[in-house]
C-alpha cells in the first residue's frame, strides 16, 4: 500500500538510494501496490517508478500471500525506459515489464 509521501528504496543503480512517492498514475486511487506505476521525487528530480516489492501482503491467484520486508521501486522515464541498467534485490512477480527483467540477474518472488 504505497501512498503519497511514502519513502521507497530504489532497487537499481540509477543513483538515488531512496525516493518519495508524490503521485499515483492511472485511474484515481489512494494506494498503489506491486506492479503499479507511480511518480517519485529523488534527489531533486522527478521520475516515474514501478513498485517492485511491498510490505503489505499481496494475494496470489492460488490463495497464497507474499510479503516482502521493504518497499522498493525501480525508476523509469516517462516513456517506460529504466533509468539504471542493473536491478538488485528481490522483486515481486507482478513486475513483468521485459525491459526491467532483462537488466541482469533478477530474483522474482
Amino acid at each position, binding site marked *: 500500500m504505497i501512498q503519497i509521501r511514502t519513502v521507497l528504496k530504489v532497487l537499481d543503480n540509477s543513483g538515488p538510494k531512496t525516493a518519495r512517492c508524490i503521485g499515483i498514475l492511472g485511474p484515481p486511487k489512494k494506494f498503489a501496490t506491486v506492479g503499479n506505476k507511480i511518480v517519485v521525487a529523488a534527489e531533486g528530480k522527478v521520475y516515474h517508478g514501478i513498485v517492485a516489492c511491498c510490505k503489505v501482503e499481496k494475494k496470489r491467484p492460488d490463495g497464497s500471500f507474499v*510479503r516482502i520486508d*521493504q518497499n522498493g521501486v525501480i525508476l523509469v522515464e516517462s516513456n517506460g525506459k529504466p533509468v539504471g541498467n542493473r536491478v538488485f534485490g528481490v522483486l515481486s512477480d507482478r513486475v513483468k515489464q521485459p525491459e526491467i527483467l532483462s537488466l541482469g540477474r533478477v530474483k522474482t518472488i
Partner: protein
Amino acid sequence: MNSQIRNIESAYIKDNIPSIQIGDLIKIGVFIKEGNKERIQYSEGIVISKHNAGINTTITMRRTLQGIGVERIYLIHSPKITSIKILKHFKIRRAKIFYIRNAKKLKEKI
C-alpha cells in the same frame, strides 16, 4: 466448526501432511507453471505462525533472500502444494514468533 461444513471439507483435506509446529524449519514443494513448463519449486523457511481453520489452515513461512526477508503464507491443503518436509525443529515457547522479524542475529533469538 459446523458439522455440515466439516463433512464437505473432509473430502478435500489432505491426510499426508506432517504435524507442523511453530519453529519448524520446513521445506515446501509448490507446483508452478512457467509458460508451458510445469515443475516443482522447493523453498525452505521457518514457520512463524499457523492459523487453524479446517481446510483453510495456513502457515506463514519466513526466509531471507539476498538479505531481504520474505514471508509467504500457504494454504497447506491446497493441491498446488506437493510436499512438506520438516528439516529441523527449534524449541519455541510462543504460538506466533513475529519477534524474529526484528532479529539482527536469528540464532540468538531462537
